[in-house]
């Protein structure tokens, strides 16, 4: 009697798994290398003295790291103001998007009005530059230029579709019986939304808010058109540094890091929230 196939030893399988992991890691490194290298280089630039920036052979890890670039950034430019501007614009646009987009997403999900959802996306697909000039004229007539209002309002084009789309997805997964139970329990449609659907969609609200904040935070074109000297948002400020203070790589990299940090922080935060599900136990098998 001979077995159909000879069994492999445990050692073989251990080796095999190790090789698989190694190959996977190699592929990851190759795919992520361009991104990771740029990130690494920006961090490196921000911590080096000017003299080291253009050194050849390049200095990757500064021998004596310095925070001088960050100090110069905040001392020589009104970067704290730009940070505050960005915070107001992105925060305001996100908040407004939540106020409008969460009920809108609920309505679209419950009435299965997917046409409306697509319509929503069209505003996002249209290139921003194509309607910025008419908007510029409009804001001029309204006397809003030179304030943060035009920037915050146009950022709704970015934040609102994100919030609506994320919320549609969340509300569609809510079992309809929960709201039906609420209606039987004497709730109006708004009360069912407020007391049942909304608390259960909290992870969706967090995800939508963070995503729209990130996209708004990094947006350049609306700020570039509408911002005045004191109403720049950070991406615009970074761009302006590039033009006026040519080759100031250190402060520029420091500015990029400051722009990046909140986004980095929020991205780490969002990963945990996406995993959490609140609907467990409400209906069978959930």
């Amino acid at each position, binding site marked *: 009697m001979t077995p159909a196939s000879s069994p492999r030893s445990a050692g073989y399988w251990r080796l095999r798994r190790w090789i698989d992991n190694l190959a996977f890691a190699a592929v990851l490194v190759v795919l992520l290398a361009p991104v990771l290298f740029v990130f690494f280089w920006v961090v490196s630039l921000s911590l080096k003295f000017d003299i080291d920036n253009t050194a050849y052979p390049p200095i990757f890890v500064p021998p004596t790291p310095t925070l001088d670039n960050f100090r110069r950034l905040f001392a020589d430019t009104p970067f704290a103001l730009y940070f505050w501007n960005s915070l107001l614009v992105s925060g305001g646009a996100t908040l407004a998007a939540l106020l409008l987009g969460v009920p809108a997403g609920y309505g679209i999900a419950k009435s299965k009005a997917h046409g409306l959802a697509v319509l929503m996306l069209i505003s996002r697909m249209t290139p921003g530059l194509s309607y910025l000039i008419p908007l510029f004229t409009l804001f001029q007539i309204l006397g809003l230029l030179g304030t943060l209002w035009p920037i915050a309002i146009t950022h709704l084009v970015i934040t609102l579709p994100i919030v609506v789309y994320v919320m549609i997805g969340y509300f569609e997964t809510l079992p309809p*019986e929960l709201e039906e*139970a609420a*209606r*039987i*329990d*004497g709730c109006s449609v708004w009360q069912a939304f407020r007391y049942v659907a909304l*608390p259960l969609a909290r992870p969706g609200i967090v995800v939508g808010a963070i995503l729209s904040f990130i996209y708004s935070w990094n947006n350049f074109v609306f700020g570039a058109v509408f911002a005045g000297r004191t109403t720049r948002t950070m991406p615009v400020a970074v761009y302006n540094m590039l033009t006026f203070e040519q080759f100031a790589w250190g402060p520029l990299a420091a500015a990029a890091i400051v722009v990046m940090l909140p986004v980095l922080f929020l991205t780490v935060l969002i990963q945990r929230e996406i995993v959490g599900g609140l609907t467990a*136990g*409400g209906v*069978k098998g959930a």
Partner: protein
Amino acid sequence: MATLELSSVRKSFGATNVIHGIDLAIAHGEFCVFVGPSGCGKSTLLRMIAGLESVSGGEVRIDGKRVNELGASERGLAMVFQSYALYPHMSVRKNLSFGLENVRMPQAEIDRRVAEAARMLRLEPYLERRPGALSGGQRQRVAIGRAVVREPKIFLFDEPLSNLDAELRVRMRAELGALHERIGNTMIYVTHDQVEAMTLADRIAVLRDGRCEQFAAPLELYNAPANEFVAGFIGSPRMNFLKGTLAAAGAGDASVALAVGGEVHATGLTAAGAKRPTAGEPVTLGVRPEHLQLVAPGAGQADMKVDLTEQLGGESYIYGSLAEGATLVVRLAGQTRIERGQSVGVDFAGSSSLHLFDGEGKALARRTA
């Protein structure tokens, strides 16, 4: 307590009609069960009563008052969902009190009712837990409790036990029966399980394809089914049906020439409908497994070959086939020595119960035990 009347209630989704005009009158304190196969419209009908589905035609009346236009929140009903539909983000206590807070009931009264329901349903140890931390049976009791605290005019149950395991289902069934006994409200209960229907109901509405086939007390459905569908749906194993033609029909007797050969002469029949049986008409002979008698081969009206015997200890089922693919099930009390492959005679005429249905399946005449 409340009455519920449905008069020619219809429901259509677009061009598809799902409920074709149902008339029912449910009395104060009655336990009414809607039973029927999947897709017969029983859940839709319940949701229309609840106000979760609009009524396409006809009228739903609670206490004589038309409620077609009232929303679910204004009808004063409570519903227990198949999936329980507990609010997962609220504690058990909050789940119970939510509906009462919505109507701005005084807090003392809310506390009293929640405590009362928790005591009755043995939920006191779990009041501060979330539904996610409860077992299936406990969740089911919370769902019932949420209905009980409302002290509704009518309780609606949509297959409430179908997610429980067999043992728990039997226990919850008994508890539901006891609950109805104790609080005495009108209850409407949807199920596809005929055992639940038979054991719980004061009256059962048997639904098929959006029509009510019969609305009667459980034993009346069993003893005097209005048609072949009801006869086949109620009772397990289901009633045996044999095709034949009416050879002769008198005032209280009839002769049926069976398609499988043999003739059954039945006496002591009473008319079941307005229609008089006429000779030559195609009929179906119906007899329940427990009403058939096995005799020696050749001694009955037909002989059958045994395909399978199921011995349950207290009773036995004999599955056999006749000529032309017709099959029969016979229930015998106790245990049997009949084996597969054996040939036995079947006595119809001596059976204590017989049903005759016309070509459209309507009951013509019957003899009941």
